[in-house]
């Protein structure tokens, strides 16, 4: 019997008053794929950061291949044979594949040797990459392959993959999971952090579920059903909200209107062909598109965050907007929650900032949207992704907007936070807002929307929320 690849035992970690991990344990057997599940903020990422030497635990022990370890940095963990692929890639876009793989190495940079290593890893594992390709020119799936190749180039025998399929198209995700399955043999193992229960059920041998920093389930996956995992994650079975409960057919007056509005970018490339469409009060209009079809421009036109380069966009100034990349477009990580709340409407604000009334407003918004933080003075960067998203929704809906435009609203969120967000969108419709929703998850768009705008090759069509018709239109089929 070989020693477990990775053992974490009784790991405890506090951040101020918040207990992120409360005696959490994890045993990864060699030759297995181990799914690590839990809601946002349940402690999965913290546990893996402890394993990878990025966070020092307050208590508990760590063993790799049977040997006790104490990592003080990620470099120690890499030396011990661990590799981690983060949800947000850590690649240098301007460098080539070879150069990115060589980063973090020691001594002289031998380009030919590293390139040969990249090819050899490709041959051995099927993760093929062109060593001379510049990273910024690679599609997301290839960038992810590169992240894995980087780890393998450092002789990683245990891979930690954090939400690896979140950025991939369904076919690419299936391919990646199949690869994970094939790779995790012998003394190698994979820890798979995911929100996709189907992925976990399909590929993992073992599962560990965290809830509020404690392990609620740790066993072999065989024999488990999705409902068991959900129960372990949430504590109680979640009843799926009825999709059609408050779907409306009668919409109000037009709130958002595009009249031949198109977008041509700074390099003269057409991002969105001239488009005419209307969104009425009290309806949810879904936007469906494959990534990069011009849907980002369409949403920003409707949200009044982008001026059309041709045609007209009739959009009130009171449109709430929840962009996909919240760290970049929605919040200031280095400011506290009160300041981030005040960010909405900052462009039109005059005179003094009334911080005291903002504080009251914040307390109210945090209660109503169940935003969990150590207090109003918490820095935005201290919040988990789900809480940041809830914060942004609370802020955007706080100013009594006439319309709401959201982009990938549930990306990276767990089951409960997702359900929360979808409920808020339906409530916004019921309150008479014109709602526009784009999601990479087509089922989500279909389930929410009264009708769907399909963007393909920069042009827009309006369809009924029919799964098959929308799916065909997205791919440009008649």
């Amino acid at each position: 019997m070989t020693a477990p690849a990775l053992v974490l035992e009784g790991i405890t970690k506090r951040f101020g008053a918040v207990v992120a991990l409360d005696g959490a344990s994890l045993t990864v057997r060699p030759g297995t794929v181990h799914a690590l599940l839990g809601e946002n903020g349940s402690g999965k990422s913290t546990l893996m950061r402890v394993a990878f030497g990025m966070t020092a635990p307050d208590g508990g022990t760590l063993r790799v291949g049977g040997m006790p370890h104490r990592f003080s940095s990620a470099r120690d963990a890499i030396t011990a044979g661990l590799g981690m692929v983060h949800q947000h890639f850590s690649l240098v876009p301007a460098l080539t594949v070879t150069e990115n793989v060589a980063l973090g190495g020691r001594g002289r940079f031998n380009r030919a040797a590293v390139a040969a290593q990249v090819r050899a890893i490709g041959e051995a594992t099927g993760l093929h990459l062109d060593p001379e390709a510049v990273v910024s020119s690679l599609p997301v799936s290839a960038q992810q392959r590169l992240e894995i190749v980087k780890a393998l180039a450092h002789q990683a025998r245990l891979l930690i993959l954090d939400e690896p399929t979140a950025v991939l198209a369904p076919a690419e995700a299936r391919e990646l999971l199949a690869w994970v399955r094939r790779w995790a043999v012998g003394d190698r193992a994979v820890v798979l952090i995911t929100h996709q229960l189907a992925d976990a059920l399909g590929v993992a041998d073992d599962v560990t579920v965290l809830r509020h920093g404690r392990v609620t389930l740790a066993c072999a996956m065989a024999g488990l059903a999705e409902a068991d995992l959900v129960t372990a994650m949430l504590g109680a079975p979640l009843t799926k909200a009825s999709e059609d409960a408050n779907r409306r057919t009668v919409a109000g007056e037009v709130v958002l209107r595009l009249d031949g509005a198109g977008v041509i970018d700074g390099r003269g490339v057409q991002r969105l062909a001239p488009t005419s469409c209307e969104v009425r009060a009290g309806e949810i209009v879904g936007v469906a598109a494959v990534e990069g079809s011009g849907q980002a421009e369409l949403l920003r036109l409707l949200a009044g965050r982008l001026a059309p380069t041709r045609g007209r966009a009739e959009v009130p100034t009171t449109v709430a907007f929840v962009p996909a990349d919240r760290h970049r477009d929605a919040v200031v990580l280095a400011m506290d929650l009160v300041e981030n709340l005040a960010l909405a409407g900052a462009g039109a604000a005059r005179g003094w900032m009334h911080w005291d009334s903002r504080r009251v407003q914040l307390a109210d918004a945090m209660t109503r949207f169940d935003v969990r933080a150590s207090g109003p003075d918490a820095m935005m960067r201290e919040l988990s992704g789900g809480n940041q998203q809830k914060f942004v929704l609370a802020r955007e809906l706080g100013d009594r907007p006439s319309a709401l435009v959201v982009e990938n609203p549930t990306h990276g969120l767990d089951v409960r936070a997702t359900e929360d967000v979808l409920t808020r969108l339906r409530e916004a419709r019921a309150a008479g807002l014109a709602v526009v929703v784009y999601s990479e998850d087509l089922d989500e768009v279909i389930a929410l929307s009264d009708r769907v705008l399909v963007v393909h090759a920069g042009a827009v069509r309006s369809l009924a929320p029919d799964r098959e018709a929308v799916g065909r239109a997205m791919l440009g089929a008649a």
Partner: protein
Amino acid sequence: MRLAGTAVALVLLALTLLAVILAAGGYDVRVALAALVRGAAGTPDAVWSATLVRATPLLITGLAITLAFRAGVLNIGAEGQLLMGAAAAAAMGLAWHGPAPLVVSSVLVAGLVAGGLWAAVAAVLKLRFGVLEVISTLMLNFVAQYLLGWLVRGPMQEPSRIYPQSATLDAVARLPLVIPGSRLHAGFVLALVLAGVLAVVLTRTAAGFRVRVVGANPLAAASAGRIDASRVAFGAFVLSGALAGLAGAVEVAGVTFALYENISPGYGFSAIAVALLARLHPLAVVATAILFGALEAGAVAMQRDAGVPSVVVNVVEAVLILLMVAVDRWRSRRMAAQAGT
């Protein structure tokens, strides 16, 4: 309270560093440091006439840098903006006679406008053509320096046409003294008021909040705040230049009373250190400007009385900045290690 503690710690650190450097250079540390302290704070007049007079331009340009850096604008052209402000102020002060308050005010306004316009050149280049302001403002420093050299030898040279300097300002164009018998002029009080105003503007007003947001995350400012980020940055840039220009005007109207080629011993560059050491907090800039003013005032005495080249204090200033950067780095690493769930 924390601010005072940090200030005291900074002074002690600066003196310790200086002692180490002096000892390494083979100087008599006690004699040299005694001369330094005497020159900076040995008598009340040393404080008023040397330290605080020196601190005044550092404080005003330090505020200029603070405003620009807070908006994410890396204006390192405060030196050039200061020189242009000084030139315009001297020209205005020599141009007309009238009631003193009016003339002095016009001198200060001329400095503000000239500094603002000089910064506006770089601001327009950035806004229109995307020219990096680090490059453009640095280059404009040289242009300003040579322009000033030409002015004091050409159109603005004193009537006898012997010295490379302008004629001397009349009393009506000079800033009043705060303490009679000393050299401390009203410019220092003005600088203190400006520090307070900038602190309040940044923390309590909508405009100041916009500046901070644009500096911290311009994309979120535009998308979530509907802030015209480039306009805010433009405004902060020009205002920063205006403040630096005002520093030049205050120097002309309060200290030199004439325009010289070397009117600034690099105030605009020291100001970057002053502002960074204060972590871009306007009230802390008061403390760091006085510290640097004291060091430079003391350095003059140290050179005179102990034969130590005054440039050693520049070394101390530089090491202080490096230490602060290192500490910041260490802290943010610790914070990064603490963050994340």
